[in-house]
């Protein structure tokens, strides 16, 4: 870790002011990802602006029946918040599927959105990586790519976004509230994270002088028919090979509304409008779910070590939708997949 300066932000406006004066500064909240990356020399900020004491830790009801989650709400408190458990259990389940309790106690809501890929080569400063050093090349494409993406990849980058929480937030159509020098703006969740394209160094559409202040959930929480199914190389405390957030609204066995988001497969939580449209109005059965999975994966492309993820994703989608339809969501403690 290189030497750096440290300062506290007094309020959101002060944080925005401080970051504007120093383009090599970074905000720190929970620090679970940033400090790790600083120890690896991947992140080398000249200054840390400590936002952890800003009053952004509440969960409040919004006028339209949704919830506004402060950006500094710790992951553990969010997962176990009574309103989240009752109305958005998909979000609770996804959060509890990720990291460890120690990390969830530290990690913030905004920081979870901004965590960086766990691609081995992004962490290994001895190897080329277009995300870490634009133009240096992608080591994963012809390297160890078991954990890499199968959808939305580019020749420059095949990294995945590591978050579980974000997969649920994508399915729930959350919005991200940010503040910058020109005031506040709202970014739809699907527009927050980017695909790599030719600029994989940019994970999100957040501007360098902006700060995440809240995440808002719309009223519909799919609390009855949902499941978060995470498949990984060990039963706990590992990143997803494939994860599926499935949420359905059913009426007499017919699907009225459907949401489907995948983690571990792309540079962002992956949603597919055609796959969701193929679920709506159909009977909630295996044929419907398989058709939706085929549609979602129509352009999926595996690499040397992760081609298995295409079939794994197909089966995981069908399983998660079945769990959602049967109102038997995947348990995150009893790991048996039923």
């Amino acid at each position, binding site marked *: 870790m290189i*030497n750096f300066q440290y300062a506290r932000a007094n309020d959101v406006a002060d944080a925005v002011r401080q970051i504007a004066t120093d383009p090599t500064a970074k905000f720190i909240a929970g620090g679970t990802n940033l400090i790790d990356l600083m120890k690896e020399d991947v992140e080398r900020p000249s200054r840390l602006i400590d936002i952890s004491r800003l009053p952004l830790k509440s969960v409040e009801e919004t006028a339209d029946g949704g919830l506004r989650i402060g950006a500094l709400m710790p992951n553990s408190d969010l997962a176990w918040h009574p309103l989240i458990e009752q109305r958005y259990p998909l979000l609770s389940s996804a959060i509890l599927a990720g990291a460890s309790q120690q990390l969830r106690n530290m990690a913030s809501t905004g920081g979870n959105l901004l965590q960086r890929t766990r691609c081995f080569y992004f962490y290994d400063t001895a190897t080329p990586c277009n995300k870490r050093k634009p133009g240096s090349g992608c080591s994963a494409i012809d390297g160890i790519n078991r954990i890499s993406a199968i959808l939305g990849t580019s020749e420059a980058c095949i990294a995945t976004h590591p978050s579980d929480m974000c997969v649920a937030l994508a399915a729930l159509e959350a919005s991200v509230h940010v503040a910058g020098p020109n005031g506040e703006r709202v970014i739809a969740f699907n527009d927050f994270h980017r695909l790599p394209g030719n600029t994989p160094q940019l994970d999100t559409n957040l501007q360098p002088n902006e700060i995440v202040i809240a995440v808002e959930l719309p009223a519909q929480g799919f609390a009855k028919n949902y499941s978060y199914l995470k498949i990984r190389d060990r039963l706990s405390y590992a990143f997803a090979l494939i994860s599926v957030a499935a949420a359905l609204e059913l009426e007499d066995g017919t699907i009225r509304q459907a949401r489907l988001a995948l983690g571990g497969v792309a540079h962002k939580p992956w949603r597919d409008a055609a796959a969701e449209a193929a679920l709506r109005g159909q009977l909630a059965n295996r044929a419907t779910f398989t058709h939706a999975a085929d549609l979602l994966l129509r352009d999926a492309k595996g690499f040397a070590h992760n081609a298995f993820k295409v079939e794994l994703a197909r089966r995981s989608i069908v399983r998660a939708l079945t769990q959602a339809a049967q109102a038997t969501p995947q348990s*995150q403690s009893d790991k048996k997949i039923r």
Partner: protein
Amino acid sequence: MAQASKAKRSKNPVPLPDKFSVAMTINGVETKLAVAPWTTLLDALRDHLDLTGTKKGCDHGQCGACTVLVDGRRINSCLTLAVMKDGASVTTIEGLATEGALHPLQQAFIDHDAFQCGYCTPGQICSAAGLIAEGKAKSADEIRELMSGNICRCGAYPNIVAAIQQAMGKMDGKP
């Protein structure tokens, strides 16, 4: 190789900042220390305060050996900057026993032989104290899941779960 290490150096080195004065209540004792911004809570405990019970395992938040309680919550001290915890209350393994009596978790780990080499044990016990205070884990499955941030390379897991179950019955949700 010389060229590679030269390239890593910043063209504009950051001037060394002053040390920051930090006040924390550590194991009930009000403690003041001066730390550089990059000093982790783990290094402050071990190197500045000689509280070497808290262990440095991976130093990347992956093993849990550095787990301590900050304001009653278990965290990885290796990923926490000491300067950010000014005013916090920290409990380490050294702060769990009361005069003349082991903490119920310490006793339970002995009763159940819940360790072999012992390196992960301070982190396991602090983590378990946090888990019991949270009050969410009831079954063995739930204990295993919520203890998954603490790795034991000797593989004492079954005995660790048994020890936590014993202590849980005696502690009634108190840390």
